[in-house]
């Protein structure tokens, strides 16, 4: 073995410095062992190293060390990552891929601004649309009109490549299902705790029913529930797409809005997220705002209050109270698929399963590779529909093999991805959010 060359260019050591386009210190954690390869959906799909976690980190390091320019091949490698963070769960050296990709994408946006169409689309989508409940509502309403008139295909064509995802959009529910949650819902029975349910941006428009089910389940478990829609979007999609500036802005808005929920006596609610992607992101606000002197401490306090829906309910108190309320519900064989940002992002694996096991007589079957990505991956399903479908195809095969007639998930992206995939293949497997499953069991026959 020869003596390795010492790096000629000494790369900067802080990721948040101006002009830095790669999180170099984080990239040094990688020991190049390759244990991540087979759990990476894009590597499984393509078999090529630059589309694996190890390959991506290797290229980031090469860019930081001045051995590689941020050329198109590099951009491709960084762009194709689904940010499912599966690699984080299997990495013995404990890399933070999600964070590294966000920094790398942010860096690319700065050194090599994308084409103006993409820029416009992102600006409209990420900065104009997602943070505004009113505008989202408007778009949802318009889409519903198009869908009812059977015109989505025509408009999709007019939009060109950007419209490709439009055809796959689920049917937008009527306006009454897209309304805000009540500001306050009392506990259903004796009250024990106070929670706020994070409504988010897309969910109220498409999955209002999941929110309402969540409120009923939380209330049944003894929690009073506050509606929390003040900041609309948590900023996860902005961060994943490398717009860290907007992401930080959304984080500050969310934190500020949450701080206003503090009661006069100083008690703060637990902020519940029933969207794995938002929950995972909000739990990392402290890292996002670490270099912001005004917000760093507030972010640290904030993240201690965030919990996933299942994580909260599986705590001894709520779980015990909820279990007493659950009855039989005849759903056939049910299986659970771990959303990436729940299992890999938040380490929440057993809790949803425990809650499902509390439903009397529920026939739970196992799914192979439940922790692998379904291909939804935030905006990926919209931006790269073909790849996304290929990733999903493997999951659908496993789902069929499991024999389940209901698939339970806990993230809106996965939920929509499965629904559209199952619809395309003509499957009659039903997709439910964990909250919906528990909600049905609330109405179930007593045991």
């Amino acid at each position, binding site marked *: *073995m*020869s*003596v*390795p060359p*010492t*790096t000629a260019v000494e790369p900067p050591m802080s990721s948040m410095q101006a002009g830095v386009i790669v999180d170099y210190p984080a990239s*040094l*954690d*990688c*020991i*190049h*062992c*390759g*244990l*991540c*390869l*087979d*759990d990476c959906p894009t*590597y499984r799909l*393509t*078999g*090529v*190293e*630059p589309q*694996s976690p*190890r*390959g991506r980190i*290797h*290229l980031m390091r*090469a860019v930081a060390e001045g*051995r*590689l320019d941020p*050329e*198109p*091949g*590099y951009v*491709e*490698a960084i762009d194709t990552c689904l940010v499912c963070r599966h690699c984080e*769960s*299997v*990495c*013995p*050296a*404990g890399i933070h891929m999600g964070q590294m990709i966000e920094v790398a994408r942010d860096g690319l946006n700065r050194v090599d601004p994308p084409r103006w169409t993409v820029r416009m689309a992102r600006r409209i989508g990420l900065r104009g649309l997602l943070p505004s409940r009113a505008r989202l509502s408007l778009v949802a309403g318009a889409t519903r009109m198009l869908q009812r008139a059977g015109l989505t295909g025509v408009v999709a064509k007019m939009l060109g490549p950007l419209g490709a995802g439009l055809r796959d959009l689920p049917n937008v529910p009527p306006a009454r299902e897209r309304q805000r949650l009540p500001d306050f819902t009392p506990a259903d029975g004796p009250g024990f705790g106070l929670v706020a349910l994070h409504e988010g941006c897309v969910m109220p428009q498409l999955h209002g029913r999941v929110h309402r089910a969540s409120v009923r389940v939380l209330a049944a478990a003894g929690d009073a529930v506050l509606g929390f829609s003040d900041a609309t979007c948590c900023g996860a999609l902005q961060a994943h797409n490398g717009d860290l500036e907007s992401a930080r802005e959304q984080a500050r808005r969310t934190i500020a809005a949450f701080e206003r929920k503090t009661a006069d006596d100083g008690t703060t609610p637990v902020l519940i997220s029933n969207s794995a992607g938002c929950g995972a992101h909000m739990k990392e606000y402290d890292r996002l705002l670490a270099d912001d002197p005004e917000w760093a401490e507030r972010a640290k306090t904030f993240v201690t209050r965030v919990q996933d829906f299942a994580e909260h309910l599986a705590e001894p108190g709520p779980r015990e109270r909820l279990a007493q309320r659950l009855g039989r519900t005849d759903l056939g064989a049910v299986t659970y698929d771990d959303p990436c940002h729940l299992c890999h992002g938040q380490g929440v694996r057993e809790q949803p399963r425990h809650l499902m096991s509390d439903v009397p007589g529920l026939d739970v079957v196992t799914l*192979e590779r439940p922790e692998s990505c379904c291909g939804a991956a935030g905006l990926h399903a919209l931006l790269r529909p073909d790849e996304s479908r290929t990733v999903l195809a493997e999951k659908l095969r496993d789902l069929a093999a499991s024999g389940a007639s209901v698939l339970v998930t806990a993230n809106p992206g996965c939920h929509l991805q499965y629904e559209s995939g199952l619809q395309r293949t003509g499957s009659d497997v039903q997709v439910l959010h964990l909250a919906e499953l528990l909600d049905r069991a609330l109405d179930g026959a007593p045991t």
Partner: protein
Amino acid sequence: MALPYLEELRAIVGDAGLVTDRAGRLAYESDALSLEKQLPELVVLPLDTAQASAVMRVLSKHGVPIVPRGAGTGLAGGATPVAGGVSLSTARMREILEIDPVGRTARVQAGVVNAELTRRAAPHDLFYAPDPSSQAACTLGGNVANNSGGPHCFKHGATTRHVLGMIVVDADGEVIDLSHQGPDPDGFDLIGLIVGSEGMFGLVTEVTLKLVPIPDATETILAVFPSLDSACDTVTEAIARRLEPSAIEILDELTIDAVERSVFAAGYPREAKAVLLLECEGSAAEVEATSADLTELCQEHGCLEIRTARDDADRRRLWAGRKGAFGAMGRIAPDLYVADVVAPRTRLREIVRIATDICHERGLKVSNVFHAGDGNLHPNISYDRRDTDEVRRVLEAGELIMRACIERGGSLTGEHGVGLEKQEHMCHLFDESDLDAMRRAREALDPDLRMNPGKMIPIRGCREMRTPEPMPQGDDR
């Protein structure tokens, strides 16, 4: 840069089967031995034997060197590209072609991941026994090239004992079909020769492997020891008493600490100086008897505590810690030098101690995690590659450990292979005529020396590298 053969190859494998751009190729510049780097001219990813053969015919015509690559998890630089050469990756050849539950065999493409085969064999109550630590990612073709081991090879043997047949494509693209071998080879044991040849004879595209029945009972024992010495002695004695567990592993203090701080935290006791991880498998009665014997033996050697894992989740956790150990070392220092020497099993303690002393004398941090039952040691030295002097001391220590092993009847590598890393050290173990016999085999099967050139066999003669010993001279010519 236009490669004269690029379009011919594109016609065979298509765009998805090529990595041509500089960034993409840069991701292939090393395998898991990241100290050695070389940018390949091109990366080609065929889908099957026919494509591989066609690709290799084209490369033969143009006289291009070929470096086979599986998942690139090798630790010896066996898949490091060569200058002016093409890396031929099996990563897209991932079909399990057939599982025969009665014959207990599986026919797979070379790019199938080791753990995937075990997963797919499980419904038939079978598994694939060799289980290298990288099994979640490494390919079976790569296992064949390196004759990979793993903890359970103590009982079941390394890869070579599990390969029943294969299809290999030679440097000129000719397909050598050895897939219908009976219990004995038809003619010479070419399979025995190819397994462990580090891709220097041809590209293995398909393998027929033996599957093993999942045992009725399995028990994993974790024995906690007050010193590394006593753990080593326990193993030596277990071998001498001819106890037959299926795996015997040792992890030392520093390793335990790193593992416990990683995602693979297995609940190993942090205060232990060493733990012995033992697994027994077989019929319930056999497991019970062997486990009782082992427990007694551990106690005789002063073990502090014994934990037994009987359920699957517990066992998996104990093993996840062992398998993630190398990676977890990333928490001690940015870089890790993984030595892979072999010692006669009667001298485990002596050699582990010598290795530790060699490192400590040089101010290096060494941790041990190894397949004790097979005498396969992994003294791991943590370092930071940016510290040039530390790198020098690490390499010096690595060399001295190898020499110490060889002087005591040991060997250079037990499972990682020679590759680039140990190429020059081959001369410590073999003399020029030994290496010449290896060269003969190579020249017979790849006369142009285009398959993975410059690996394993030292390029310079050994006489130039060391003082020659008096050697028996052949008296003809």
